[in-house]
């Protein structure tokens, strides 16, 4: 079970969180023309990377904040975590 550092609450076990997928996906702006391909990429197409991955988790049984977690998908190592509005450098 992963041990995740919620930037709001501190170290918490994985069973307090729910997974939210790739954090690098940006929702297209509203009211803007978008090609079928770009829309499909947003809705469906994910890279399923092996290695370092920035992903979303929500601390549902805690502060209910969505956070960003930099995790290695192969080793489960967690490098850094960020608040939703924090810039990831």
């Amino acid at each position, binding site marked *: *079970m992963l041990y995740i550092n919620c930037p709001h609450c501190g170290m918490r*076990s994985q069973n307090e969180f729910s997974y939210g997928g790739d954090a690098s996906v940006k929702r297209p702006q509203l009211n803007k023309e978008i090609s079928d391909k770009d829309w499909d990429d947003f809705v*469906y197409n994910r890279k399923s990377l092996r290695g370092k991955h920035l992903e979303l988790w929500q601390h549902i049984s805690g502060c209910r904040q969505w956070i960003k977690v930099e995790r290695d998908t192969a*080793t489960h190592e967690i490098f850094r975590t960020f608040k939703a509005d924090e810039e990831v450098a």
Partner: protein
Amino acid sequence: MTQAFRIENGGLINREKKISFKFNNKSYFGYEGDTLASALIANGVHLVGRSFKYHRPRGFFGAGVDEPYAVVQLYRNGETEPNIKATEQELFEGLEAKSVNCWPNVNFDIGAINNFLKIFLPAGFYYKTFMWPKSFWYKIYEPFIRKAAGLGVASTKHDNERYEHKYEYCDLLIAGSGPSGLAGAYAAAKNGARVILAEDKPRFGGSLLTSDVNIGNQSGKDWAEGIIAELKTMPNVVVKNRSQIFGYYDHNMLVMSEKVSDHLPATKKYHPNKRLWYIRAKEVLISSGSIERPIVFGNNDTPGVMLSSAAKEYLKVYGVLVGRKPLVFTNNDSGYETAIEFKKHGVDPVVLDTRKNPVSEIIDEAKNLGINIKNSYVVVAAQGYKKVKSADIASISEDKKQLGEIENLQCDCICVSGFWTPTIHLASQSGNKTKFKDEIDAFVPGVSKQNETSLGAANGVFTLDETLKTSFKAGSELSKKLTEKDNEIAIPNVVEKKSSQHDKFWCVPLPKGKNYKRFLDFQNDVAVSDVEIALREGYRSIEHVKRYTTLGMATDQGKTSNLNGLQLVSEIENKVVPAVGHTTFRPPYTPVSIGAIVGREVGKHSKPTRKSPMHEWHEKNNAVFVDAGVWLRPRYYKKGNENLFEASKREAKNVRTNVGVCDVTTLGKIDVKGPDAAELLNRVYTNAWLKLPVGKARYGVMLREDGIVMDDGTTTRISENHYHMTTTTAQAANVLSHLEYYLQLVWPELNVNVVSTTEQWAGAAIAGPKSRDLLQKLFPNSDVSNEGLPFMGYIEGDLFGVKARIFRISFSGELAYEVNVESDYGNFMWEKIIKVGEEFNIQPYGTEALSTLRIEMGHVAGSELDGRTIPYDNALEGLVSKKKDFIGKRSLQRSAFTAEDRQRIVGVVPLDKQTSIPEGSHLVKDDKAQLPNPKLGHISASCWSVEYNNPFSLAILKDGKNMIGQKLFAMSPLKNKVIPVEIVSSHYVDPKGERVRS
């Protein structure tokens, strides 16, 4: 009464307390502190089972967790448990156990015929033998395999035992209480670290219980007892016996199974049977020791052949002799320690040492005691069927290839020692890259991935002096980092005898003209010849060899067989062992009962039960409840002898003619507040929200980004910046997360807050033509006329002194209202409605009547919003705004979603107007068509229309728009029904929706 194989004195058992037990229906006795295995051996019982494939007789091979043979079915307090290792099961009064894998009994076993047919059961026998002909599979092969493969029988009864889960955090977790574990724990505890020390056996001390050593002028055993006693007094230390750490997971989470009651005749009241500990440790010390490995020779599975360390443990811990004419077969000094113990208890052993001329203190002691030692000698084969009677032995050449003349030596047990294998399971599970250590022919932990350190024998260190030094140091340094305390500990003086180098010999060659089975894996009957076949047939990867031959599988997971298997593969393949590599170590280290894994989450406790504030009233009024997610909702209120159908029909009819009241507390409720609340709703829902005035409600549908309907419900504007959103009962949590996602990540510029208020409000839906009259009486001071409170209107009112929210919304299609009060007043509200409603013939109605009312109105709900439908499919396209953008809108342009013949909701009526259509039935054009019959749609919901008094269903049907009036068949192979039906409009009752506005 005396026991034939129990020595007069000695051992750690309590001879004051006799315990009687039964094995295979025969009564025996043992002593407190015995295991089932030690008690049986004391009574001279060596035949305990039959092997898995050939049904050869099986005895005892080890004395603990590594045991491959003595797996029994246990009976305790009216329950039965399979796959119990007799070597681990502590004796308790009244224990009953039986052999498995034998029929009709252990002494005469019909399956043993496999032994004579073994030519048919070589490696890969599952894959080869049971493939053809295909038709044989169900009738012959499968039952055979099931019977042959079953080690024990699981109980089919409800398990009355209780199992607990516990979460724990610590600085240092220490796995194993041998010398390294005790030293590490003690040093860390002295530095003030929070320590958990776990020992899988009942007694602490590990190898110190059986070894002949001194620590600080005490025996090893006394030193261990002193340390444990001191640790137990320290508030920062938890010491647990009967507790096996079986899994090392991510981020230093380890799981331990504590046997709380297995050693007792029955579980004490309020106690669990087992407790599963989830432990998050900052540092882990792995002091899991090592397991002796066998030397492979002919018939080495005969009962009476066992590990030399096990023989020593039976003698020193239990005071039990595994034989009176022992033969010790060894390639290292450990065998001598066992021989010396035998000699000290008046039994004369013979030692066969594969080495030519080993010299050490231990060997000197054996010689001084006059023990008969034969150097450069091996056991060629054990003789005897149900018990060792003698051994064929021979000298062996220096290159270990040539056997001398075969001699026969009388003996009643053969104690084998092929040196030691470090128990690296936990280290390997943690991601540690193990490495092969040539000097000990075994793998040891290498580079750590997580915060773990292996110590002592688990790390391939076999001298006590070095073990203690390194373990004290590790415990002290790791804890110092965490507690910043440094209490120096004097490392005690150690007296131990020095060993000589072991011999790398592990397998005795076959003598000319003999074809003895030489077993590698005792639990699965995998012999040297099986691995040879697998390699000959082209299996190369050790993982493939394992699966093809079953080497190292089943309940012992090859604890005694893995390394010899690797040696064999490396020899045949002409590779070094590390190049062959080992199979992956996966948790659990040893079998864990499913009950412990499940814990308390069984039956009613598998999820929380949520009840509305009116629950007690429902109970008192004969409500029959149904699970709605985690909620309990009244399904119907039983009157007299009514069944579900009759009651729900009565309730629904009463709504259509008079007035009914339904508990709708379970609906999800979310407060949406802030200056941008309307903008958020406008983006989340498919319809327009910017112009909703205060005091008005609106029905909305929300989509996922892929265009699929996520949820629906009404949202009411309570005040300028305050909206009250409702969701379906099932989707409440998901909708909240969905809103939070967009507010926190996508549109953080929106100034809106959302919070769940589901539990803050109790809700009652009042529906039926007389509902307004009732409402007026409930709220005499409010204007609830059609003008004062029009359809989709909202007002606040005073319910006999209690503040209430009144919504004119309808789920049933009737003139209807929903009244909300704070949860604590829920029951007050309900009782008032019932009381005041009496004069209007009010009746409460449950979810069954509610469904009936909504289905015949064509209102979609959970079974239509099934994660596969878009607004059009549910006839909700009128709510999809063309002007504004919203979540999921772009997806609605996908070609499949705009196809002319897109599926759509329809009504379905059976032609005979009698036969109810089972939900889930498929709609097809031709009921006689060849299979697979093309499916046009499916029945999503069915009811008995109270309006028309005939069955009515909703369906999602391909090209539904153009299918009205068509005749199809509803087929339910599950219910064996074929029903001719007609497709009609989904709005079966009041298609213009006049009633809700009346």
